[in-house]
Structures are given as C-alpha cells and as structure tokens.
C-alpha cells in the first residue's frame, strides 16, 4: 500500500466521525486531490478484496471505516457496541418529507402528514438529524428545517442527490398524476 493510503487509513481509524475529503487532503499538503482519491480507492479495494472485517465507505461528503454487517450480531452479543435505536414511523415520515422538501416549515410537513409534528421535530433536532436552516417570509416568519450531515451518515448516503428524484418514485406527484376523472360519483 502506498504511504498516502497508510496515512489516510491511520487518520480514518483515529476518527469517530466520517472525515470530509478536504480534511483528509490537509493531512498531506503535498498530495493532489487525485492522489487522495486514488489512495482512498486503493484502501477501499484493499478492505474489500483482502478479507477484512471492516470496510471503507463514502458517506455524507466524507469517508468512514465501518465494521462489516455480518459481524454486527457477534459484536452486539459481546456488548462491545450497541446499535442505535431505530427511528419511529412518525420520525421517518417527517424525515422523508424534510429530505425532499427542504427547507420546509412545520405547517407544510403537517399538511403532508395530516398530523401534528411538533414533538417529532424536536426529537429529530435533538438527535441531530435535522436543524433549523432559516426562517420563511410571511406571517410569524416560521422556522424552516433541513437535514444535517448526521442524517447522511445515519442513512449511509453520500449526498442528498443519492436519494431517488421525486419523479423517479413509483407515484410521481402533481405533474404526472392524471386529473381525477369527472364521472358520476359512485356514492
């Protein structure tokens, strides 16, 4: 393995958070972005092909070493680490809306979900998955919410664009939906 790849490996091992590419680049001022990228690729291939218990993944604009999924149970049984709690359905729904419509205010989220989301928003902010990103114009200048890098990290997304576009989803909205047929109602 080339020295740069070894340096990056050491840094990734030492960090609890994904390391953004520019921070990785700062480890060696001499290295070009292309060299950093090829060192990361080399490291990833190393982990993938030479039989390692960990893997290197790109997440939320950075890189992170994670254990492989097949060892989760053994690690958890030995109580060396615990999986984070699963998000509730209400939290996931709210998160899904924010991920696609950000920046978005509470009233709009409630309009889509059909229920109040005050406490859900609070707990999502506490978990660091969303944050206030601004205020809307208009009455009361309501807070606007957006997703955070922790959101990307917890869903192993490189960036938001990795989510399917709204028009790629099975039920495309607004534009593609045929207008309701004007028929005699069956009621």
């Amino acid at each position, binding site marked *: 393995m080339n020295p740069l790849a070894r340096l990056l490996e050491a840094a990734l091992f030492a960090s609890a958070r994904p390391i953004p590419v520019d921070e990785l680049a700062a480890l060696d001022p001499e290295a070009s972005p292309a060299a950093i990228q090829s060192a990361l690729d080399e490291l990833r291939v190393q982990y993938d092909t030479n039989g390692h218990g960990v893997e290197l993944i790109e997440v939320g604009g950075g890189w992170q070493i994670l*254990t492989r999924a097949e060892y989760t149970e053994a690690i958890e049984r030995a109580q060396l680490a615990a999986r984070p709690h699963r998000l509730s359905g209400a939290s996931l729904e709210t998160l899904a809306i924010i991920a696609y419509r950000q920046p978005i205010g509470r009233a709009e989220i409630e309009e889509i979900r059909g229920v109040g989301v005050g406490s859900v928003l609070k707990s999502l902010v506490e978990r660091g998955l969303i944050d206030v990103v601004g205020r809307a114009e208009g009455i009361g200048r309501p807070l606007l919410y957006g997703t955070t890098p922790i959101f990307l990290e917890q869903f192993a997304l490189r960036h938001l664009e990795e989510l399917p576009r709204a028009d790629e989803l099975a039920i495309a909205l607004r534009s593609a939906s045929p207008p309701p047929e004007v028929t005699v109602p069956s009621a």
Partner: protein
Amino acid sequence: MDIDLLIAPAPLGVDFDAPAIVPRQLDQPADPSSPFVIELSQFSGPLDLLLSLIRDEQVDIYDIPIARIAEQFLARIHFMQLDQAADYLEMAARLLRIKAQMLLPRNELDDAWEDPRAELVRRLLEYQQMREVVDLLERLGEDRRGRFARAYIPQQVSPPAAPLALSLSELLSAIDRVLRVSREPAIHDVIARPLDVDGAIATVRSVLEFRATARWRDVCPESAAPWQVLSALLALLELARRGELRLAQLGPFASVLISRESASQAA
C-alpha cells in the same frame, strides 16, 4: 388487535347518523382514566388510515366512493377510540364535506365543475409517495445500523481547576456586586399569635387529676384552632420535661397515650 377482522363490510348508503356499525356503545363512555390511549403502531395518521381503507376496499384512488370510505373511516376511528384525536376528526369532517359536495346537483356539461375529491386525491398521492421514501430510508437506515463505526471517546484534556486564589478585597467587592444586582428582598411582617401554654398546662393537669391516663383528644378538642393545638402540644412536652407525665405511642400514627408519672401521682 386485528382491526380488519372486526370491521364488517358496510352496506352502501348507510346514514351517517346511525351508529349501527359502531362497535362501542355510544352511551358507554371511554375509560376515563385513559382517554388518550391511542394505538399508533398501526396507523401513523389519518391519511395512512384512509390509504389502508382504500387498499382494503380495492377502490380506485382517482374515483373514491366517498360515502363508503367516509363511513368506514368514522367507524374505524370510533372503534380505535381515535375519535378524540383532532387530526382524525379533522379528516372525518373533511370527508363528510366532500360527500356533501358530491351530492349537490350539477350540470353534467358544466366544464367549470371541479371534483371535490381532487384535493384529497392529491394529498393521498403525496402521502403515498412520502411512504415510499420512508420505506427506502428504513432500508438504508437498517443497513447502516448494522455496521459500527469506531467508538472513539476523546480524552478529557482540560486540566483540573487551579486552587482558588482570592484576596479579601476581591471577595468583598464580589459580594458588593451581588448585593447591588440582587433585588430588594420581600419583607414579610409576621404577626405572632400568642400561645396559651400555661392555660393548656392547666387543662392537662385537670384532666390527669381524675384519670391516670388520657389521650390527645382529651386535652385538645377536635375543633381546636391551630394556636390551641400548638399550646396543647407544647404543654404536653413541657409537662413531660418536668416529669409530671409520660408520653407513649404504641405504633406509627397511633394516638398518643398520656399517662400520669407515678412520682407526681404520689405528690
């Protein structure tokens, strides 16, 4: 609880005012101790419930038989005791309004007529699309949850606080600052109510003159004012201190037994 088994397919054209399909009796109030126990594991909101009804009934989302769906919606929220939840009630009201609009006579050739269900259909589709994203996020999150990152705990690097070095003048000026910013303390005038311990002592003595033992109620009437209760209590303690009587309590919260001290009995 399996809801689906308990909801009978409702006949068409049932009047909404008739509570015939409501499983819970109307005159039977919900359990008052738990009026807001809501089983949320099944539905995450009124739109979710509505979509599940539409799926169960296998009706076209663009041509919802609004009367039938509205009626089942009402039955289900009532059955699940969700009819106290504003979100579900709001949807129920909306469905009934749409139903009423559908019943209004209209000219079939009128181009300006807009299906009153259109807004609901749009919201349902939007919600359904969001559910699709939820499924995706659930998959991704579950996948990520199954892999651990390094659990690195940063060392505490801040040194312990140095011992406090403070001169007297610094301390005094700090106190001065605190006193200056602290608000004027509220001063209450406490009016002392005179206790009549001597009078109570006389009462206790007179009771014990005739009886070797007495109880609390014998020396302090039930209707006694607080100052009388306190006087009696102090009198008992005072007499016990002087050795004129003995106080005993046979168990926790049992009434206090007052007995004449044998020495004073002899006197």
